[in-house]
């Protein structure tokens, strides 16, 4: 009857109570309120824009290069000089993150030279197939108001869109002059205000500069 010897441990544990925390707040996890998240939680990414609507991503692929899970795929392309997508010569033409691979380490955010990619605190999202696990630029890019898109399969709650930390620089260098000095989004989103950087460079014409 030696096999019964293990049962006392099982029985003892039975009455010890549950150590798993309820994710849902409220007693017994019944109410539909999310538990508070740590300040530095890494969630779903967003691709930010400048105040004037230009995309911050310049397609430099540094995020893809640093990614330990190799889940980011970026391709750059030439900006159309008359209708640029981002400031400068190059923009992110393709931007994809495969969330089946992403480990939310945030190294992409650290590598980004323009603060184009940041992470929100949203982690309540799920997929039914591989294809929808790959977020493309269309889904990652913030909307015209600077807020992350709330996709149908994601569980966004009131105020959660504030936490995207995409606030640092307000106006695109060489962007639309109407927006110079204006700071709105970050303030509206409740993330404080930082003075915009000077974008008006005093460029002296050089004699040898070609037309």
């Amino acid at each position, binding site marked *: 009857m030696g096999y019964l010897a293990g049962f006392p441990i099982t029985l003892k544990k039975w009455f010890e109570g549950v150590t798993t925390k309820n994710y849902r707040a409220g007693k017994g996890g019944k109410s539909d309120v999310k538990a508070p998240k740590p300040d530095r939680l890494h969630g779903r990414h967003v691709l930010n824009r400048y105040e004037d609507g230009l995309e911050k991503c*310049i*397609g430099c692929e540094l995020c*893809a290069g640093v990614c330990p899970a190799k889940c980011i795929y970026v391709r750059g392309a030439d900006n159309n000089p008359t209708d640029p997508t981002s400031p400068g*010569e190059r923009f992110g033409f393709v931007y994809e993150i495969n969330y089946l691979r992403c480990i939310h380490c945030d190294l992409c955010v650290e590598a980004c030279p323009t603060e184009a990619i940041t992470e929100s605190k949203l982690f309540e999202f799920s997929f039914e197939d591989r294809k929808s696990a790959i977020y493309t630029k269309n889904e990652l890019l913030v909307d015209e108001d600077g807020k992350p898109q709330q996709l149908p399969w994601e569980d966004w709650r009131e105020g959660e869109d504030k936490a995207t930390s995409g606030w640092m620089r307000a106006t695109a260098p060489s962007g639309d002059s109407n927006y110079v000095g204006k700071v709105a989004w970050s303030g509206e989103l409740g993330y404080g205000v930082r003075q915009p950087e000077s974008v008006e460079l005093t460029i002296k014409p050089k004699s040898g500069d070609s037309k």
Partner: protein
Amino acid sequence: MTATESSAVKATTGVPFTLNGQELHAEEGELLIEACDKNGVHIPRFCYHKRMESVGMCRMCIVEVDTGRGPALQPSCMLTVTPEMKVETESEATKDAQDGVLELLLANHPLDCPVCDKGGECPLQDNAFAYGPGESRFVEEKRHFEKPIPISDLVKLDRERCILCDRCTRFASDVAGDSLIHFIDRGSSTQVNTFPDHPFASYYSGNTVQICPVGALTAAPYRFKARPWDLTGSPSTATVDSSGSRVLVQSSQDKVVRIQGVDSDAVNWGWLSDKERFIYEANVSEDRILQPMRRAVDGSLEPMRWNDALKQTSEALGKKAAAIGGARLTLEAQHVWQKVLADEFSVVSYDASLGDDVSADVVDSLPKATYDWAFNAGSVVVVVGQDLKEILPSIYLRLRGVVKDGSVELVEFNYKSGSLAKLARKSVQSRPGELAKDVKQAFTATPGERSSDLNCLVDTDKPLTVIFSRPNVAESADYLTEALQVIQSVRPDAHFLPAFRRGNTVGAQLAGLTPGVREVATEDEIIVEQVAVVGRPTAEILQEAANGEVETLLLLGADPISDFPDKALAEAALDAVNTVIAVDCFENPSVASANVILPVAMYGEVNGHFVNSEGRLSPLGARVTAPGLVRSDLEIAASLAKTAPQSNSDAQSSLETSHMLGSEPIAWDLLELSSEGARIKTPTKPIQRVKADVPTVADGLRLVIGNKLWDQGTIVENSRTLAGLCETFKVRINPADADRFGLTAGAEIVVKNAKATASVPFITDSSVAEGVLWAPANVRGFDPRSFVTFSESVCYVEVSAGEQK
């Protein structure tokens, strides 16, 4: 560009010097920076490049040197090692100087590394990281220029990033001889730029992008395609011409995105022509054929299955068949195609070259030279035929280098002076039909009659190399053959180097895919047994086809309508045959009449080997997977063997072996293996005696059809950036002839003979011989072959002034 590999072997003799307290030896006259490299001490540098003269522009290689007068900071790229020199590369003073130089260079360098194509492989980034101050003290505005300006169709220049190292300008003027970019302005406004209205239209512009130590020069085809850290590379060989330049084929996301030159001492010294460098664009062309196609009744193409395509091909090859082309395939594919055609389908008519190059028989019978042998100091090079710059551009750079520094004497025989005419000892302008006569005159004249410049031709102390190419497709090839015979009879010690237009022509000869008498050693290897003539020249194949004696014509990546000297015959032949099977990747004029198209893998998609014009065997690397349903030539040939009607199992298994190993009985015994690859042993066949016709004398100009680097070749036409580089048709006439015929500049002229009349633009060009009308082959606008009667040995045309525009 970066540090050369430090060799482990340290010299024990030579000039003694002290490097960081270590007693070492350098070679006589060696630069300090090179001596340090050899001893494993890396000195940072930007402007120094071992294939170019040092200029000491960037000051990055400054080190502390004591030659007995106390330590002083000196640039190590300008300093030869002298006895008892004491060098400190790690001293405080050196570090301070390096720090300062980098701070100065970075003062005006923009911080756009994230969008810069060089970012990640940039010597300025690397050196700033390794030797720089670490922090910037500058808060001032940086110097600004307009962001990239296109200085040619292939190269963009961003002057903000330029650190004025003089590498590109030095390359353009000293190495390539196209001084089209220069420093302009002074002081802090100094910048590199082109002359107004003169783009950087050089055949070698891509090299400046590769040697630029910052991202100031970027290549338009590679711009923003990938970042250095997601590139993977395979060593390979350029196949667009027969020079065999060593390259690194780099890909990202399974697409070839860049080709870089590899410094190979024996071949290209790291330089590439733009054609070799940018040819990969065609791989992703939208027009590429990606599945087997069949011609429907209404002439349109419709997809078909591989099985059906192979079956149809196999049935067609079973009837009276002939094959043209194959000089662009890998050596392995050439071998397997030859086996399949000859052994499985009993095809006797095949030729890898298209009648527009030197015939294989002539080449086979001549003792071969290597590039190294030809360009060795103290030797004489004779170029017979076309300008090497248009045919083997990367080898032209080596020839130019040795001719320019005077170590090699150059004599040219041609109808239009080559790009080195000014540096040559003598440039003999000949006329079609008189090449052999003029060569004979130069080699056999008595010392009194001969110009003293030509004495080097008969000076037997100096090794003689003849680099030859088909000078003109509008005349009989016999004149060149006769000229070579003359040289060989006067100088039996002369070596020869064919300049083939098509890449793997020598490989095709080795694999037996060119017509000729094959000699095979019998088993005791003493008696050489003659084997029957195999193959048949393209001219004969097309003639037979036009006569209705050929039912099936197989085109192995060949476009006879564009390339064969007699266009009408090629067209008639393709019309007359029942079935045309094209193994190709694009539609071209010849493929347009194909009944079945078998899509084939391109450069960078297949493994194999390549044999260059000097007979050097080098690898071809597969870097990416072939797209669509495309198959390699080997696969196609091997699967055809299985469907062959009289297929015998022995041949099949041998084919499979060679397919797997790529090493079945190609004439490997003809190859000498060495560290630089393999070379074909010089055969000892006697040259076939040819006596060319004496040309008839007629009024008018003699037509020369020569080649330009950029033409309407199938691959170039399908490369997005390169297609625009092909010029529009213009004939060139010597100014004296233009005066004689009363031709005015800017007007079109009327060119006519019994076969055709055409009004064409012309320019006067004193490099063209008098009495010659020079026309480029296969460019946009007009086809000069319409004037040529193939049976006549020289083609005459009459010119007259056209209507004023």
